[in-house]
């Protein structure tokens, strides 16, 4: 490729995030000065996102090294950037139909959402650990504030639990990076890869990994998840489950792939196994839909960690898993949003008789639940299949057996949701509100979950192509 094409590609690739920064400040500041724009922040945000998505082109097969290796633009980063902007667009649509923030903090709401997305984009493109840490903070700090943006009791409690444990995780990460910085001054993932790891370095790696495990919500670093997902506005919970988790997963994979074996991989083995077992067992007794989805999100982090053991093929599976999981979970949170009467979201019993009162909503919810449970021919089945197949091929059969057994256990609580919707009679006084844009999101996600399963080839090809570049 000629230098001119590369320059124009870099300019085009970076215009997306730069436009998001501009849009974020526009949402925050413009309505303060121009009265007519008050209340239109959501539309500004959506418009900017559509333009930013248009900037995404098929990335050429090369690794573009920017800012002395701090950012690496590859087809992998392009894939994940598209994923992040897509997830953000859906969350913006949800917030347009049912505002998550009070009237006077609409601007801050979209500003924080955009900043978190830019943090995600920097995180997945980061070429060294310190950049990854700064990006992680840029991703997390806005989300702490977003969780409590309503300043109501549940929201603030969610926000404080998320903040305290998230910041504790960041503290562990940065200490680990400080230790690694002493041993490997380069700190880039490429330099860390071939390095021999003395005991002190392994301590550093474990600190970094536990910090990112907080973000990804692997057991035992998951304590904040149920409370944060339940108390945060449902739109923000959807964003946390889809985007924040994916960012942690990508960095964990980078750290995982530095090692061929040894104690660090054993730690990953235990994290994956304990996460799959604990999260699924804890989910069984939940009665609140948002808490159920929170535990389900922890469990899926465990399955993704199992997929790590498949090596390079496993990472292709992870990249397929992330959008498939995001579609099902954003869809499920959108249903929760459509049915919620107070901030904590609907109880499972509130779904009773949904098949009678709103048959299409019930059908879509059933599709999300079956996809999360991994029922063919929905996308969730193929995601789990590829994830586990890679790990089996690498000889980690024991871990996969645990994951499959726990996946069978998870059928119980996913089916419970469906049973409540289809078997229980509806309470008499039902006044369904119109769905509006929430309905559009639910429709799109249901379509995505079905299409990505029946026609899994295109998405899978993209994911595998992207996985070669990390």
């Amino acid at each position, binding site marked *: 490729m000629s230098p001119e094409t590369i320059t124009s590609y870099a300019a085009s690739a970076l215009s997306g995030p730069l436009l998001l920064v501009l849009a974020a400040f526009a949402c925050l500041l413009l309505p303060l000065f121009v009265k007519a724009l008050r209340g239109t922040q959501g539309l500004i945000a959506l418009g900017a996102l559509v333009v930013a998505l248009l900037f995404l082109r098929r990335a050429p097969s090369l690794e573009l090294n920017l800012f002395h290796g701090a950012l690496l633009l590859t087809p992998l980063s392009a894939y994940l950037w598209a994923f992040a902007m897509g997830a953000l667009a859906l969350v913006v649509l949800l917030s347009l139909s049912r505002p998550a923030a009070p009237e006077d903090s609409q601007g801050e709401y979209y500003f924080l959402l955009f900043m978190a997305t830019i943090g995600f984009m920097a995180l997945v493109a980061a070429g060294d650990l*310190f950049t990854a840490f*700064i990006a992680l*903070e840029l991703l997390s*700090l806005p989300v*702490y*504030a977003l969780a*409590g943006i309503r*300043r*109501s*009791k*549940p929201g*603030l*409690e*969610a*926000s*404080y639990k998320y*903040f*305290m444990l998230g*910041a*504790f995780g*960041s*503290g*562990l990460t*940065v*200490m680990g*990076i*400080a*230790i690694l*910085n*002493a041993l490997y*001054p380069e700190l880039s993932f490429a330099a860390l890869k071939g390095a021999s790891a003395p005991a002190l370095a392994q301590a550093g790696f474990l600190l970094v990994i536990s910090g990112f495990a907080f973000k990804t919500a692997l057991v035992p670093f998951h304590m904040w998840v*149920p*409370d944060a997902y*339940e*108390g945060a506005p449902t739109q923000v919970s959807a964003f946390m489950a889809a985007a924040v988790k994916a960012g942690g997963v990508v960095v964990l994979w980078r750290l995982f792939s530095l090692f061929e074996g040894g104690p660090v991989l054993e730690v990953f083995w235990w994290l994956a196994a304990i996460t799959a077992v604990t999260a699924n067992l804890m989910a069984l007794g939940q009665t*609140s839909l948002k*808490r159920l989805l929170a535990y389900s999100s922890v469990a899926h982090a465990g399955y993704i960690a199992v997929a790590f053991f498949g090596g390079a093929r496993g990472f292709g599976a992870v990249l397929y898993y992330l959008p498939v999981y995001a579609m099902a979970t954003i869809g499920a949170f959108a249903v929760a949003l459509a049915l919620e009467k107070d901030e*904590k979201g609907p109880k499972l019993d509130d779904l009773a008789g949904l098949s009678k009162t709103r048959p299409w909503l019930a059908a879509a919810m059933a599709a999300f639940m079956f996809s999360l449970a991994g029922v063919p021919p929905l996308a969730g089945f193929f995601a789990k299949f590829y994830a586990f197949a890679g790990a089996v091929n690498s000889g980690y059969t024991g871990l996969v057996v645990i994951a499959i057994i726990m996946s069978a256990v998870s059928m119980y609580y996913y089916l419970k949701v469906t049973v409540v919707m289809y078997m229980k009679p509806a309470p008499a006084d039902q006044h369904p509100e119109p769905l509006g844009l929430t309905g559009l999101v639910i429709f799109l996600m249901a379509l995505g979950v079905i299409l990505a399963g029946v026609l899994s080839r295109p998405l899978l090809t993209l994911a595998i192509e992207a996985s070669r570049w990390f």
Partner: protein
Amino acid sequence: MTAHTPAVISFVLFAIAAAGFLTCGSLVRMLMFLELMLNAANIAFVALGPAVKSQAYAVLLFAIAAAEAGVGLALIIALASAFKTLDAGGIKELKG
């Protein structure tokens, strides 16, 4: 004072901060311990790493610690007015 002293100080400070964070019940103290953790890491950066680059990292880390304190303090003020307490055990609106 040997070459190892700053490293030892940093590790000990970090251990104290992490233990303090996990055991104390007051939100303000938890926030202070968080800042202490970041400062311990900062000492480790400056004391152990290669000269100029690590010092630049330390400056960036100051900014991050400040941002974190900003979000944390804002949150604590909002919590204080909503719950009338800053005891971690007293904030129990959600299950679990």
